[in-house]
Each structure stands twice: as structure tokens, then as C-alpha cells.
């Protein structure tokens, strides 16, 4: 089998095309450009977080606190806005709080040599808890109408949502950093052998600290977009986002033990999951069933290369 076919990205493209063909047959509204663009609004916030998560997972770590960080920074923004701060300043504060949350994770992980899984599991609780403490069970509403343009509006009079533009720009930046810079090379090297990196003078701790801090910043940016989209803040927003993000990263071909994966793979997998959900919602598939199907899709995609391998072995043996 040729190299191209063996690449994970190729499998994702095939699956994406398959989803388009099947869905357009099942629903007459699926292949509508405006519909498809609007559908991206349902996953761009997660997609933006997935970009940084991709880098973190490639280093062999994971950040479970992203969704809780969203809730915490959104809650701070809500409280600040409610107490009279301008929406711009409140959003700035939101980004600051998210960044500090990520920095906190990074410092604990690198200074005390603790596994990221454990540290971010703790801050997963901690950040969400802070959101509840700040807001109780209320919601902050009454955000100005203009603010909604950020998360709901369209780019310069086109039908492309602003959120998708943010995602596209960030995806190009993150992809460039991962694949074209020495920083990106360090990320792969750390994921493959952290010890050898330390012995080679690679500033492993600094890189991890940067990644977790950026993860916090990106999470709070997603929180601003989410708040702008739904124009309200509750402490239970974005619940379960972290697992959806990690699912997309893994489906995108990033090894959960680190060391391999590409940005383009993750982008493809984000669209694959996003459009599969969109298609199913057009068909009135209940949310619970959708979750089941996404799980099946993940297992199928992970099994596919193994099945192809077996098939290839069999055919080469019989040949």
C-alpha cells in the first residue's frame, strides 16, 4: 500500500468525504454553504483549545483543566462586568485570569516534577470550584449587544463566522510553530524522550511552562468567545469540553503517549466530528445517541489502520 494511504490524515479525509456524501443524501439541508459555516460555531471554541492541547499531548502530557479554566475566567469576567467594569476591561481580566490559571498548572508541574495528568485533574476541580464560588447558582446576563459580534458575527460582510476566522488564523500560527520552528521540534523530542532532551540541553521545563500557560490563555479566549456567543455566564459552562477536545486530538492521530501527530490531522478530526454532529442534528438524532455514535467513530478510526495492516499482511502472504 502506498505511503499516502497509510497516513492518518488520508484516512481522516476519506472519513470526512464519506460523512459529506452520506449526510447530503440523508438531509437536503446538509450541503448548504451557509448552514455548514454556521455549524462550525458549535465547535470552534473547543477547536481553538484543541490547537494548544495538540502540542501538550505531543509532549506526552495532558491538560484536563481547560474547560474548568474557561468557567473560572468567564466567571471572573461576569463578576467584573456585573460590578460595573467595561466589557473590554472585563474580557481583558478574563484572559489574565485564564493565563494565570495555566501558569499555575505549569509551575506546579515543572517545579515539583509532578505528572500533568494529576496536577490538571486537581485544577480541574479547583477552577470549576472557584467559578461556583464566584457566581453561586446565578447567571450573569445583560452583556451589551455589540459584544455579541465577536462570537456570533460574521467576518466583514461575508457568511464566514468570526469564530471560524479566529480559529483559522490560530491554526495556521500553531501549525507553523509545531512544524516549522525549533520550538516545535523540541515538542516532538520531549514527547519521544524527555530524558535525552534534558541531557541535550533542551530547556524542557521552560517549554512545558510556556505550553501550559498558553493553554490557559487560549482557554480563557475560548471563554470570551463562548460568553459572547451565548451572552450569559454560568458556572457550569463548557462542562465536559476537556474530554471532547482530547477526543478530537486523539482522533486527529496524536499519540496519547506523546511524540507523534500533526496539526492538520487534528484540524481534520475537528471538522469530522463537528460535521458528523451537525448532520445528525439535522436528522433529529437525540444528543445521547450522538455521543454513542461519536464514540463508535473514534473506535472505528483507531481500529482502521490496524485492520488495514492485517489486511495488507494477509494479501501479501497469499501473494
Amino acid at each position, binding site marked *: 500500500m502506498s505511503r499516502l494511504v497509510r497516513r492518518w490524515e488520508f484516512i481522516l479525509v476519506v472519513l470526512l468525504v464519506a460523512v459529506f456524501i452520506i449526510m447530503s443524501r440523508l438531509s437536503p439541508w446538509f450541503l448548504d454553504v451557509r448552514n455548514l459555516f454556521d455549524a462550525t460555531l458549535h465547535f470552534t471554541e473547543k477547536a481553538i483549545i484543541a490547537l494548544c492541547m495538540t502540542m501538550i499531548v505531543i509532549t506526552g502530557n495532558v491538560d484536563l483543566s481547560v474547560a474548568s479554566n474557561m468557567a473560572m475566567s468567564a466567571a471572573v469576567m461576569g463578576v467584573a462586568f456585573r460590578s460595573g467594569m467595561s466589557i473590554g476591561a472585563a474580557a481583558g481580566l478574563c484572559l489574565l485570569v485564564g493565563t494565570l490559571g495555566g501558569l499555575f498548572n505549569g509551575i506546579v508541574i515543572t517545579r515539583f516534577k509532578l505528572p500533568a495528568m494529576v496536577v490538571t485533574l486537581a485544577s480541574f476541580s479547583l477552577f470549576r470550584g472557584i467559578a461556583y464560588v464566584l457566581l453561586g447558582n446565578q447567571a450573569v446576563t445583560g452583556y451589551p449587544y455589540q459584544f455579541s459580534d465577536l462570537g456570533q458575527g460574521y467576518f466583514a460582510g461575508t457568511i464566514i463566522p468570526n469564530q471560524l476566522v479566529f480559529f483559522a488564523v490560530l491554526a495556521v500560527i500553531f501549525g507553523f510553530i509545531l*512544524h*516549522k*520552528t*525549533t*520550538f*516545535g*521540534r*523540541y515538542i*516532538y*523530542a520531549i514527547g*519521544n*524522550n524527555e*530524558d*535525552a*532532551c*534534558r*541531557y*541535550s*540541553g*533542551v*530547556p524542557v521545563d521552560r517549554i512545558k511552562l510556556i505550553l501550559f500557560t498558553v493553554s490557559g490563555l487560549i482557554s480563557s479566549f475560548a471563554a470570551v468567545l463562548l460568553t459572547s456567543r451565548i451572552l450569559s455566564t454560568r458556572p457550569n459552562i463548557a462542562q465536559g469540553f476537556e474530554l471532547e477536545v482530547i477526543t478530537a486530538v486523539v482522533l486527529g492521530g496524536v499519540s496519547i503517549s506523546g*511524540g*507523534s501527530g500533526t496539526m492538520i490531522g487534528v484540524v481534520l478530526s475537528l471538522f469530522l466530528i463537528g460535521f458528523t454532529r451537525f448532520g445528525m442534528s439535522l436528522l433529529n438524532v437525540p444528543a445521547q445517541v450522538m455521543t454513542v455514535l461519536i464514540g463508535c467513530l473514534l473506535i472505528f478510526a483507531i481500529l482502521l489502520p490496524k485492520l488495514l495492516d492485517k489486511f495488507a499482511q494477509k494479501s501479501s502472504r497469499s501473494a
Partner: protein
Amino acid sequence: MGNYILELHNLTKRFPGVTALDQVQFQLKPGEIHALVGENGAGKSTLIKIITGVYQPDQGQILLNGEPVSFAGPINAQQAGIAAIYQDPTTFVELSIAENVFMGHPILHPKSKRINWQAMHNTTKKLLQELELDIDPDTPMKFLNVAERQLIEIAKALSLHSKILIMDEPTSALTIQETKRLFDIINRLRASGVAIVFISHRLDEVFELADRVTVLRDGKYIGTHNINEVTVDKVIQMMVGRPMHEMYPKTTIEPGPELFRVENLTRHGDFFNISFSLRRGEILGIAGLVGAGRTELAEAIFGITRFNQGTIWLDQKELKVRSPHDALSAGIAYLPEDRQRCGLVLPMNIASNVTLSILETFKYRLLNKPQECLIAQQFVDKLDIRTSGIMQLVRNLSGGNQQKVVLAKWMATKPRVLILDEPTKGIDVQAKTAVYGLINNLAAEGLGIILISSELPEVICMSDRILVMHEGEIAAEFERGQVTQEQILQAAIGRRQLEADVS
């Protein structure tokens, strides 16, 4: 012919690209200790894996008590009474000694088929007494040191009533006393009729212990001799296939002015008051036993770990080294002992590995593929790395070529001081000679080289000066050409020079 317990006839085993064993013979008598020696890559491990059923031979015959056998897997070999003990025993550290001893073959209550803990406890206790090990069988394995774990492996072999015991480098991680105790036990096992295959790099041990010795070289059978019919030199020559002086092509360089110096370097518990200096073009050997503090010292100089007291000087200027990054930018490079864990990123290609240490010098911190390939290709040519190309994954290279890639990575940083920790560990003879040649060239270019090695001939033949460490201190210093293996060993085990001379 009937007096052999195990016979291997014309055994051949091929792997893709290499014939690991080529028509090899081996015979084992009951109640003998049969040493199996050869350089790394000679085929010892492959032979052992065939005897223990891990590999199946491509050609040849295995006779057990005169009957042809073939083992489909390790479990079959174990049932046939063959047990193997490795240098680093793989044990279940959270489980007790008794559980480890009876792992895979528990004693059951005859009726209920439940595990008979009492019987296992008692039998283990008896086995431990036989081995003069005074430990409770319920102790978790993690509280035992390497030597004790090896004895537990022996206990396991005894519990299986093994008739053939294979010991692969059992002494490499043991202290002198532990080695002595192990030898006592091996001798007693021999007396009780167990046949023992003993693999060791240390020929002095082979001559102390073995009845016969079989030499392999490059996968071929070279010969078998009664131990009292051969000399160490003869065995070395059989192993290497050529006289010693050709192996260590030391070129004499007149060392220049002082380049590097450490003063009173101390880290509590690891090394104490270490002072030495190094001149340009000088190769300074550091000998000593495992655990003497050599690696700890090197890692502290390189900034992997910290030290409590003392100073490091390069070019008469004091250096503050807080990380390997600091050390590298000052011009100190360290080739670690564990090539696979600390030296290389195995799943990445040669180019990425070679440039890993110098990426930060790339313009705008961008990956410059042509520049990267150019650098890598230069080193592949210069170091004669045998590869299909610089995009080949390091994982797929032989040990010797892997080590050359690590060397290339350090040479790329243009160091002034190069610390080499066991640079020829686990690589074949040709690659060794090549590495020695590279070390000589680097010294000729004016680098100061610190050569940490447990292979005495290597330290003696390659170094201009030799320090011997013992329990974290420098026990002796020798000049080139004025020292024997004996003297170094005496210093390494802590005997003073004078005493050694007197006795």
C-alpha cells in the same frame, strides 16, 4: 555422547540483515560451570534466547539429555528444567518474595485448587536458608537490592528444580562482597549437579569460576577449552581475533596548557573533595567500580544534578553551571552512559538527533531543513555512520552507529571539554576501534577529554592519566604506561597502594 545434559549442534539464527549465529556448537555437562564469552554482538544473547526458548533456531539441533527437543516458547524451556538469571532481574516489585519465587507455578491445595500460602511461605523460607539469605519471605521485592533480587531468581530456579541454570552477566551490578557470595552459591549448585552457563565480560571471574570456556566471535563458534588449558591472553585473542594493541590505537599527543579544573567538588553521599585538572588534548581516564560515584560526578559537572561544595573552572574562569544548557554553552559536553535513555531520541531520525543540541543556534529559531541535512551529512561522513541516509530512524541503527550519532550530537556543539561515560558499552569491536579513533582525533584537535570507563584495558590504553575513584573519593592517580590492571583494581576496591605493594 550421553554424558552431556545439553548439546547444541550447528545452530544458525538469522535476523534481517545479519546472521546472529552461524553453525554454533555448544555442549554442557551436568555439574559443570561453562563460561560463554565473546565481545558484544558475538551472539551470546541470541544463543541464550534459543536455549531458553525465546527464539527458535533457523537450522541446527538441540539435544536435551540426548533427546532432540524444540521449545516453542520460554515456558517449554522452563518446564524442561532450564532457568535463566539476568543481570537486571525483572521482578514484580510490589509482590512478596514468596509470590515472586512461585510466580507462574503456585503451590495449590490439592482439593480446593486454592493457593496454599503457608506451603509457599515455608518452601521459600527453606530455599532462602539454602542461599543463606536471612529475609522474611513476605517482604515485598522492592525492599531488596539487585544482588538479593538475583538470589531470589536463583531461588525461583531451585523451586522449579532446574537442572540447567543460565546466568547472564550476573555480577555486573554487584559489589565485591556480593560477587563472592554469589560465587559460593554457584559453586554449591555445581556440587549438587546443576549445570551452569556463566556469561561474563570479566575474564578474571571466568577463570576463577568456570570449568570450561566457549568463545564466540561475530556469531561464529571459535572454540571450547578446559579452563586450565588456556591463558587470559589466549581467550582475549580468541574473542577479539587480533592482538590487544591493534584494538586501542592510541596516538600520543603532547597535552597543552590547563583547560579545565574542578576543586573540592562534593555532593553529600555521592562524591567528596574531588579535585583534578585537565589539559588541552589530554585524555583523563576515570576508573572505578560501579557505584564509585563517577557518573554522579560527571552529571554534577554537566549540570544535570547539583553539588554542595566546590568550584569548576574553565580557562581559569569560574563556571556557574545550573543546567546542561549552561554547561553546553560554556563548552562542556557529556555523553551519558545510558545511550538509549539519555543519549538519543530513538523514534526520530539521525538529522533530528544530531541537531537537537544546536537547534537554538538556528536563525530565527526556524527549522532550516537544508542546513540541518548539511550538518547531519557532514557528521555521517566524518564519523563513518553506516546508514541508509540521514532520515533513517536512530532506532534502526546498530549500537555502534547509535553511539556515533550521540558523539556527533556533542561534536556539533563544538565543545572544549568532552566527558565520555562508558562510550563503548554495548557496541561491537569494529565500532569500538572506530570510537577510539574519534576520541584520538578530538584530543588532537585540542579538546580535553574525560573518559569514564569500567573496561580496564580501555582506560589503561587510551588515557594519558588515570584517576581511580573509590566510594566517592579519588583513591589513586596514575600516569600513562606506569600502571597495571591489578593496581587499578586494588585502588578501586579501596586497598591502599602501599598495602598492595607489600602483599
